[in-house]
């Protein structure tokens, strides 16, 4: 068993086009570090200054990690993690 991680289209350049990859770890931080080991460059797209990026959503078993402890959210074999870029924008000039 492993942790199933769903990769959005825009990040599949790091996973050779794979939509789902397997990972491991006991927290989201560890999971992302392990993803980085297999798919170099992906971590920088998920984390900024030690925090999950504002406009990337990460869900563990359908729960947005913002509500479950952010990067410290625990994960375990058999869990499903979904990564989705926020769909956002607007006329406001800063982001």
């Amino acid at each position: 068993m492993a942790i199933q991680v769903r990769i959005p289209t825009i990040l599949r350049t790091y996973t050779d086009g794979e939509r789902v990859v397997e990972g491991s770890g006991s927290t989201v931080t560890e999971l992302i570090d392990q993803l980085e080991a297999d798919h170099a460059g992906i971590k920088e797209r998920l984390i900024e200054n030690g925090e999950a990026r504002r406009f990337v959503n990460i869900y563990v078993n359908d729960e947005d990690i913002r509500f479950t402890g952010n990067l410290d959210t625990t994960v375990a074999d058999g869990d499903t993690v979904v990564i989705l870029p926020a769909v956002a924008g607007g006329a406001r000039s800063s982001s």
Partner: protein
Amino acid sequence: MLTIDQATHDAIIAHARRDHPDEACGIVAGPIGSDVPARLVPMLNAAMSPTFYEFDSADLLQLYRDMDDRDEEPVVIYHSHTATEAYPSRTDVNLAGEPGAHYVLVSTRDGAHESGPVDFRSYRIVDGEVAEEEVRVVEGYADDTADEESTQQKAEH
């Protein structure tokens, strides 16, 4: 080029007018690889702002799950600008996360939220580069195909 049916085109404009002065947002899903915007999904603007839009995080997950179940992808991602032109802002470009989608912008400025023509423009946004594209509005996708076939037949004869 974006090819979109009249009913979906009009529904996007109606949504933009309805939510004015806040920005309206949503997607049109279609079968993966088809480039056909077939299923309009108006989304709630969780930011409820005249200058920003964002899909609610739980809504976003549900939306992508539904598309997965139907073998769909986001063919069009649309939103409105309510006081500026229908052109991607720097924010729009920085946050564009679907390189395969047509980004549609509708402007409801200058009273266009009530009546009259509304700017309806489409763009590709890939790696921070914006490219405007032609928008072709068709009566329906089936008719459109028939028209193209008849044109082709004429050309052959």
